């Protein structure tokens, strides 16, 4: 029952945050650009304009207009992109798979390196390999994503010519998912962007896993586990690791959102035709509906992942206290 109460509270909070995001989105629409001009151009007289504004409800009070906006938004209508002359949401949906591909590629790289490295550094903090990893990771977090991207292009594409320098490769449909994962060309194009995107998160996770696990290894129950005469691998990989995973999952949830921000940088350098690249173009063209749609989609991704991670965390962790939230 407690969990149900917690879950309902958490979901309400998520709805509230989405509400605020939509309000922000709407006030942007209200202040950024004149929808009329985009529709009819400059040549219409002031009188006709006012009549049109009235008819379109643009002279209604703010909250009535917002209500209308919200009503449409809930049905998935966020207006038409000025540039593409198509529903903004449709335009974004078309670019979503490319971004998702990048995020998945980077996540695979992050998980497959950060977990073993982080755990190793926690278990053997004084070994030379751990020191090497830690040194490497601090360099990793100090090099901005766009620099990794630029220099990987410079080295592997321009100088060595091993990799394509920009763009998304050939894609193919598989079970309704159109992706570059299923063609060789697509995979080759994915390598550098995924590595660049992973380059900042991986050291972050290595450091996080290491410090969490080192802290857990100091706990009394770990000492008790040693006192029971258990094998080191059982103490490390069951007793310590299981406790390490929970905080890492929470942070991981937040980092999904951060990764989305970095996709904007990666996509911009590699001219990867994803949501982030689309957003930058929309900003340059002052394509207001598209900007708002992007904000709302990204906000939704943040809120959904965070809510999901919170609910999952509380579900998995038998000890967490169900008072509101982590505090």
């Amino acid at each position, binding site marked *: 029952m407690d969990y149900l109460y917690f879950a309902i509270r958490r979901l309400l909070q998520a709805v509230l945050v989405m509400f605020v995001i939509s309000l922000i989105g709407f006030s942007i629409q209200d202040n950024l650009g004149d929808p009329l001009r985009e529709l009819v151009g400059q040549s219409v007289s002031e009188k006709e304009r006012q009549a049109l504004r009235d008819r379109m409800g643009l002279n209604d009070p703010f909250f009535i207009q917002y209500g209308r906006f919200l009503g449409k938004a809930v049905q998935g209508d966020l207006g038409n992109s000025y540039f593409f002359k198509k529903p903004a949401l449709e335009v974004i949906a078309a670019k979503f798979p490319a971004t998702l591909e990048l995020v998945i590629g980077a996540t695979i790289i992050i998980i497959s390196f950060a977990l073993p490295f982080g755990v190793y550094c926690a278990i053997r903090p004084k070994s030379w390999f751990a020191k090497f990893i830690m040194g490497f990771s601090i360099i990793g977090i100090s090099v901005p994503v766009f620099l990794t991207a630029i220099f990987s292009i410079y080295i592997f594409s321009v100088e060595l010519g091993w990799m394509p320098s920009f763009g998304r490769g050939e894609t193919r449909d598989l079970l309704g998912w159109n992706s570059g994962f299923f063609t060789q060309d697509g995979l080759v194009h994915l390598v550098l962007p995924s590595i660049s995107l992973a380059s900042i998160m991986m050291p972050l996770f290595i450091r996080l896993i290491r410090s969490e696990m080192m802290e857990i290894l*100091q706990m009394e129950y770990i000492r008790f586990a040693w006192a*029971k*005469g258990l094998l080191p691998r059982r103490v490390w990989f*069951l007793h310590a690791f*299981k406790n390490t995973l929970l905080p890492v999952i929470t942070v991981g949830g937040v980092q999904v959102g951060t990764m989305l921000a970095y996709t904007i940088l990666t996509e911009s350098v590699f001219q990867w035709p994803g949501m982030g690249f689309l957003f930058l173009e929309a900003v340059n063209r002052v394509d207001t509906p598209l900007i708002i749609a992007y904000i709302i989609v990204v906000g939704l991704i943040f809120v959904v992942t965070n809510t999901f991670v919170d609910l999952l965390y509380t579900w998995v962790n038998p000890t967490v206290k169900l008072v509101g939230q982590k505090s």
Partner: protein
Amino acid sequence: MALLEVTDLEVEFPLVRKTLKAIHGISFNLEKGERLGIVGESGAGKSVAAFAVLNLLSKPGRISNGKIRFEDVELSGLDAKSMRHIRGNRISMIFQDPMMTLNPVLTVGTQMIECLKAHRKISNSDARELSITKLREVLIPSPENRMKSYPHELSGGMRQRVVIAIALLTDPSIIIADEPTTALDVTIQAEIMTLMLDLCKTKNLGLILITHDLAVVSQVTERILVMYAGRVVEEGLTRDVINNPRHPYTRGLIKALPQENKPGERLNQIRGTMPSLGAIPPGCAFNPRCDFADNACELEVPDLMGADSHRAACIHMDKIPAFSDEEAGK
């Protein structure tokens, strides 16, 4: 030959600028089935001594000198594999806070079965059966259901019973209990202590009980070691030490006990506090707090003196008055 013989044990903690010595050469024996109490204020080094036996010192602590012989095996410097066969198998430990001792994300059953499987070739179902038997021995109601519980679903007393059951799983010959009741409610403390005493007697278990609580020690143990600032200052049969303390520190500890027949009276605290490891005074470490100290006490560290059954490390032990009936209280 004693079951466990600790000789001249020294433990140190190398820090950035200096090395702190937590234990300055202590020796003690434990016979089979004997119950030994190690008493002292916090910081006296009693827990460190206990952890040193199983080489479970927290970093960067290390044994810098001394011998720890268990049966025929020298434990200091023992390789990891052989040490594993001793830990939790021949010598078990019970820690202070049962809240912190059990892993929060593993069930009681998992934490019991893994201990058995680490030391025996045993099937899962047999390990389960045996674990349930042990839970029953420590008087846990409906043990079958408790096997599936997570630690946070149990009360503090129940948790400590689970920890004791884990310690008993492999029928060890020694249990080292580090303040096993300190973190518990007063009413539960007595229950747990009685349980431990009964178990030790029926199974002829050796017990090293580490505590600051003289009352507990006098009920449970046969012999006492009083520690102060990393040294043993008095040792002897529990009865002798409690009734006739020879070291001013022990005397102070006993006088500080609340006395049942004199409610409302001021407690006799020992003045001052235990020195920190980095600031142990020269000579007898207790001299700044001692009512009987003179200049001679600052010169050198006194050795344990007296008959084998009751020794104390005080150069003035003969001058110290015996407890009057009034002072002894009990």
